[in-house]
């Protein structure tokens, strides 16, 4: 590895998700803050092992639902009471029971749109490139290795580990450890769609 490439973080690779979970817990206990783990499916307890707090997604969904529902009702009220009052069978102009179905549908629509786009935005996706893609074995598919390709990785991006690249990168039970370099160029590499060996 050329020294010209700045260090982005350190990572360790494990063979089972239990090992990853244990390593995440101990790293968190040692005070590592800026950490992330990479797993091929959601591992129960991993977010809390990494010290992550409750997700904000439910709040965003609630806000979306309230916006959707209230604007849905407002739309019907405005159309039928203010903009174009129309007497249908002598019912009151603001006949709220018949406005409920659309209000409900738009509540769900607002909440769902906020859930999807909110979680995507918080995840900063789409993001075609990330330095973790530099980790070895990411192009497994093209190499046709016979070993199991299911990998569990724990990466630390904390400033301390990045500032002291000479420090030995060690982790108990890890199958291997490696450094994650920044991209050589500022530009996203032409092979921008890298694989993450999920």
């Amino acid at each position, binding site marked *: 590895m050329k020294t010209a490439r700045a260090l982005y973080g350190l990572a360790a690779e494990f063979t089972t998700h239990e090992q990853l979970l244990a390593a995440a817990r101990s790293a968190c206990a040692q005070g590592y803050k800026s950490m992330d783990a990479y797993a091929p499916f959601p591992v129960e307890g991993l977010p809390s092992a990494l010290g992550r707090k409750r997700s904000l997604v439910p709040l965003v969904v609630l806000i979306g639902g309230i916006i959707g529902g209230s604007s849905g009702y407002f739309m019907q009220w405005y159309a039928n009471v203010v903009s*174009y009052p129309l007497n249908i069978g002598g019912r009151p102009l603001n006949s709220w029971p018949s406005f409920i179905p659309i209000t409900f549908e738009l509540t769900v629509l607002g909440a769902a749109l906020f*859930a999807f786009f909110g979680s995507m935005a918080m995840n900063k996706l789409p993001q075609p490139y990330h330095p973790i893609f530099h980790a070895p074995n990411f192009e497994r598919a093209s190499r046709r290795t016979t070993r199991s390709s*299911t990998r569990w990785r724990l990466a630390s991006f904390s400033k301390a580990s990045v500032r002291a690249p000479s420090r030995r990168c060690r982790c108990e039970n890890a199958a291997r450890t490696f450094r994650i370099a920044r991209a050589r160029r500022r530009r996203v590499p032409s092979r921008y769609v890298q694989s993450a060996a999920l």
Partner: protein
Amino acid sequence: MSERPEPPYEVSPLGYPARLLAPGETYESVSDKIASIPLARHPPRAWYFGFLIGFSFFMLLLLGVTWLFMKGVGIWGINIPVAWGFAIVNFVWWIGIGHAGTFISAILLLLHQQWRTAINRFSEAMTLFAVACAGLFPLLHLGRPWVFWWILPYPDTMGLWPQFRSPLVWDVFAVSTYFTVSLLFWFLGLMPDLATVRDRATNVWQKKIYGVLALGWRGSAAHWHRQQTAYLMLAGLATPLVLSVHSVVSFDFAVAIVPGWHSTIFPPYFVAGAIYSGFAMVLNIVIPVRKLYGLERLITMRTLNNMANVMLVTGEIVAYGYLIEAFMAWYSGDVFEEYMMKNRAFGPYGFAFWALMLLNVVIPQVLWLRRVRTNLALLFLVALSINVGMWVERFVIVITSLNRDFTPSAWHLFIPTFWDWAILAGTIGMFFMLQFLFMRLLPMISISETRELVAEPEKAER
């Protein structure tokens, strides 16, 4: 392909199929098996065959729609009083089929039914395609489909608004919300699998295309955390949504005063019928597909058996609905209701009513037998019978109620024309064409969820 015998399966102490995944599956084998299908250079020969049939019927649909646009809805058999002909029958049928997808992906997720894993991606795709087929019919039935956007609320120069007190306008909101939410839900679950396919792709174009579609998913724990929360939230939202959509569809009928439609049992009875026909459609697709792609180890007999059980339960609810309809016709003492029931069973469309009873009530009772539920050919035939039966049900509800309502001088028979049948067959072709494209291009079983089953076998066998 079909010569391959069905692998033997383990049974529980009570004799039911026991396993969700065949023994010995690993993360690797699961991912390889599912991801290799979209990455394969050539699909199996049967795929071309199925796709071409679907495609030709899709061409028939385009022909029918073109003729419709040129001539107007008069090419159909509809007239007064039967102004709602096949278009509404097909609309309700397709929407119903779509509902099983949401039921499987959302309601069974909230109920922690792990067996949904094998079929949820499939049925979600089915939902999208079925709703696309359904959505065509109200538009085609408009008469002037080129101004369809008049049903949407927008501040137009005429100063008019849609009539928000009408169930037909509720339908617009319900169906479009349903499609949007189903699409978001489907894609949110699909993203990690697209990343898996991207990582396995060796061809540079496949890598690029799946890479763009995967949006840079890298399996980060933080991402999984939010994705899973959002997924659960969407499931929680989709659950009341799916119930509301078919209830709103049933309001189209129940709010009208036509005898045979004006009934409070319609919403629950329609929802049960929707899930009934949707599960039947999933079985009709899954049984040949698992054979074709050799997915017997992932879509095991236990899943099929459970689906048959759901069909049995919803089938009994639907049968109860038929019974109550007949009972209320008598109990109400209303002469029009009473006559409607007599006309339905013994009038000019009596054959349809008895076909419905046979296909939807009598034949599905064989599902009580475990031997039928675990016999692929019989299960397929029963599912087919239910699919046809549910179509006939909507035919009976729409046509027999309308053709003889209040004044005998206004009675008129509805006779479907060639174009009625062509457009129905055309949407079936479009549905299968899209389904075949989906199977070819995208991972048809959720890879990440199947891996979870591998990681936690005890959870899977619960």
